[in-house]
């Protein structure tokens, strides 16, 4: 299972390394969404050079930046999952993975792993962007890192399952958001809460959310490992 997972992970990352779709298309999208958030929430987020401390007068960035990061990442997830499905459909080759003889659980772990790697890169971009644009100050690295890692794994697992479920369907682009977003709603909620609590310094209250994220990640990774075989078959 793990040998097959590494093989698929390597293949998907090699494809990204050559095609650079996440780098050239999803990363600029993520930055654009950040800029648009600044327009949409200007009273909260934008520090005006002429008016001192506009930001501190209103809601502190610590309450807004986590929501911005995780909502943007959710949109990016949909794009990355869609791309992950579409590379298997190139040249009408929807059957390639099924015919490969690879362990379905391995395929699931490999494809989810590749999505995790790409999401982590985008998270880095989002965090750096928030620090640069919105003066976000990070605290409690342990809480932030564990919440982020677990949330990313959970989102990637759900995305990979639904990606396979909607592969080969003409309505995939519209179907994916409708399916994925309600399911990962608890992840978005938990990750945002953990981040908010970390940024405002109430670290202790953040850990229950990490527990929820652990349960979510474990449940959906197990589900994918068990069910991906059934997901892959069309007949």
């Amino acid at each position, binding site marked *: 299972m793990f040998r*097959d997972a590494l*093989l698929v992970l390597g*293949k998907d990352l*090699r*494809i990204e390394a*050559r*095609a650079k779709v996440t780098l050239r298309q999803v990363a600029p999208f993520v930055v654009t969404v950040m800029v648009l958030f600044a327009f949409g929430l200007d009273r909260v987020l934008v520090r005006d050079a002429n008016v001192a401390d506009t930001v501190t007068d209103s809601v502190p960035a610590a309450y807004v930046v986590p929501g911005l990061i995780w909502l943007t990442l959710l949109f990016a997830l949909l794009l990355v999952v869609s791309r992950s499905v579409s*590379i298997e459909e*190139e*040249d*009408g*080759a929807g*059957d*390639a993975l*099924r*015919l*490969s*003889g*690879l*362990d*379905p659980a391995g395929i699931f772990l490999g494809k989810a792993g590749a999505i995790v790697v790409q999401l982590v890169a985008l998270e880095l971009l989002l965090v750096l962007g928030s620090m640069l644009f919105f003066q976000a100050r990070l605290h409690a690295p342990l809480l932030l890192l564990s919440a982020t890692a677990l949330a990313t794994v959970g989102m990637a697992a759900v995305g990979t399952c639904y990606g396979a479920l909607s592969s080969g369907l003409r309505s995939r682009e519209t179907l994916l958001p409708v399916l994925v977003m309600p399911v990962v709603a608890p992840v978005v909620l938990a990750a945002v809460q953990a981040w908010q609590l970390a940024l405002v310094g109430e670290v202790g209250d953040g850990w229950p959310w990490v527990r929820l994220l652990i349960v979510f990640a474990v449940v959906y990774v197990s589900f994918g490992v068990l069910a991906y075989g059934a997901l892959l078959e*069309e*007949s």
Partner: protein
Amino acid sequence: MSVADDVQLAPVKMTAPPAGTVPEVTVAMRSVVAVLGVFPALSGLDLQAGSGEVVLLRGPNGAGKTTVLRACAGLVPIQRGDISVLGCDLRKDRRSVRRRIGLLGHATSLYEDLTVEQNVRFAVRAAAGDVDRIPAALERLDVGGRLRTLGVMHLSAGQRRRVALAALVARGPRLWLLDEPHAGLDPDGRDLLDEVISEAAAAGTTVLLASHDVDRATRIASRVVLITGGRVVTDSVGDHHVS
């Protein structure tokens, strides 16, 4: 079938397993009904093939040739009847069967963004094959050298077909399912394909081949099966034994 075809068949038959030994049955389809949507693509089809045989499936468009090949790979739901491939029941043992068969369909199943070698390498490693066989396979299909490190997206349709064949040769599965393999190849490529198929058959591989290039395909086939309306109408297996 013309007389010329029978003459051409002779060299291939010599490479088949020696007379007297019964070749191992690699494909056995019994009264198979496969319904695609509401359309019975296969309407009670019986077909057997043994190791070393090259079976040409011929018939008009929509006869069910492609469905036969896909059914052998477990890609088509079977409503009635059963299929056993390489001694395994396809309903139960799909994964292990799929490692030991190769299907080359209308699509070449290659990743556009990977190089020729990366594609072949992934296919071979996925089927737990021998990676050392890759260079020779690439050379055999004439896609080594300059093309080896080129992205598949830059290749022509014929070159892609050669790459897919190279992956098949490098993997060396025991059953080849080829759907219109001559399509898109230049004359040299077709000759090369015929050679590769004959070599594989000589080594004991079963080849099921659907082709409209009947004259060419009949030359390398050890058996010709006419499929119409989703079932076998005539099977030349008897003719050959008589002749």
